[in-house]
């Protein structure tokens, strides 16, 4: 069972701000889900594959066509809430 402190720690790692009620609900929900997924930790399977290549081979491509058109950047800037010319304005964080 996860307690309040553990949920707060996870929330801080994930940069989420939780209310007391949310924290309480999450203690219950996450503990239930973790009990369920613990089947994996307990599963006794002979010879689990060590190699984890995954579904895909890595693919690379040449970067032959650099972006020369500013219109995509322009429309992205246009949709940002606060700006100064082509600079995006956010509050100082340091």
């Amino acid at each position, binding site marked *: 069972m996860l307690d309040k402190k553990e*949920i707060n720690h*996870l*929330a*801080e*790692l*994930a*940069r*989420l*701000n*939780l209310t007391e009620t*949310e924290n309480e*609900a*999450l203690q219950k*929900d*996450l503990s*239930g*889900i*973790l009990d*369920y*997924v*613990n*089947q*994996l*930790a307990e*599963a006794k*399977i002979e010879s*689990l*594959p*060590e*190699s*984890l290549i*995954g*579904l*895909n081979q*890595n*693919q*690379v*491509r040449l970067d032959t066509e650099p972006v020369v058109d500013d219109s*995509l950047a322009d*429309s*992205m800037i246009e*949709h*940002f*809430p*606060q700006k100064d010319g082509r600079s995006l304005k*956010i*509050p100082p*964080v*340091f």
Partner: protein
Amino acid sequence: MIKEIHQKLVSQELSIEDLVTTYNDKIKERNHELNAFLSVNEGVILEEEIKNAKTVLQDNPNELLAGIPIAVKDNMLVKGLKATAASKILENYIAVEDATVIQKLKKRGAIILGKTNLDEFAMGSSTEHSVFGPTHNPYNLDLVPGGSSGGSAAVVAADLAMVALGSDTGGSIRQPASFCGVVGFKPSYGAVSRYGLLALSSSLDQIGPMTKNVSDCKIIFEAIAGKDDKDATTVSLEKNNSSKELKSLKIGLPKEYFVEGLDSEIKTQIDLLIQKIKSTGATVEEVSLPLTSLALPCYYIIMPAEASSNLGRYDGIRYANPNGFNKGENLLDYYLRNKGNGFGKESQRRILLGTYVLSAGYYDTYYKKALQIQEAIRQDFNKVFEQVDYLITPTTPTAAFPIGAKSNDPLSMYLADIFTVSANLAGVPAINLNLGLNKAGLPLGVQLIGKRYQDFSLLDFSEQIEKLIQS
């Protein structure tokens, strides 16, 4: 459907404008009770698409998709339209470009009718976790349409669009297709580009068609599939030139899918279908996928781990709140005040779960073990496909459930995907077909699974099975 409408457009029995107007009228009439469309395309953008459709049809009268109205799940980008992912965070976000699938469809003259409802960021199995309220099942408004592509399934079932696009990470196309009685196809991992799809779990996400029949599904899939430089996982699929007759095929029934908890009417309907298949001369045999019971717990480690990383971009700076920022005393405080104020309950759960399984000390116990089991599941599918050509399973354990029945019990909601997640973990193509209605008048689904990258063969097989179901 598409072919019939196409004929009418070519012979000018029907105009593209009239077709679009017909659908817009249907949407006006029924969307208020279904809540399936979140936004409808109109004004200049729609006019341009109609103009484009006419040009395409004039230049190439064989272009089946010219003028065909399509609905798109609201986690894909359509330039100039909102892409909310049913989240408060993206409530006012307007896409600045088209997703690759949308580009491809527009090039062929398709018309985007509007954007459909989903569980927030495609996380859920009922479309109840949408900040814009749940979508209702067209067969019974008190029931869920399934999810997360519940809006897309509902609009196809209620004929508010001819076809729709959905996305499927653990069953999000096939499960709602089953609940709403439509065809829903999750292609092989790598078959369709995800560029412009809001990422949930990048190693599992796949875009696919939701349609009224397999023929339409094939047309849409052919249009959207293929290699794309903007999604490095994509490949070009070979088309199937020699579609095999049913009687020469071997079909497997994985015994782990026909277990206690499976609705008896679904079981009976599938048994009936199997009798019909056998009568064509095809071989049907029981096979085993021994790790099936571990697929869902495995999925609920891999998916939240990736989701917690992918959702990190909604940090309160990028995709910023248009009302401005809450100031913080330092960087941590800033994030705490700005990130997450918009995430719904299910998103919070998965972000924290992902953070937990990836954190120091738990990585080996959970994440690494899950990847190993995923690899073992993939090998099981490879082995079984040495014995048989296709697999047949139920799509869901039950028919659609009432709105509110599971929304406060995450684990019981997750179990709705128990038969669909394996295909995502193994990267294989899988499709839902409607088997008919149960005694309560609700659709029941059957799932057909094929070998990885044999998507075109699976669709040919599905067309044969569809005929048998209807016979």
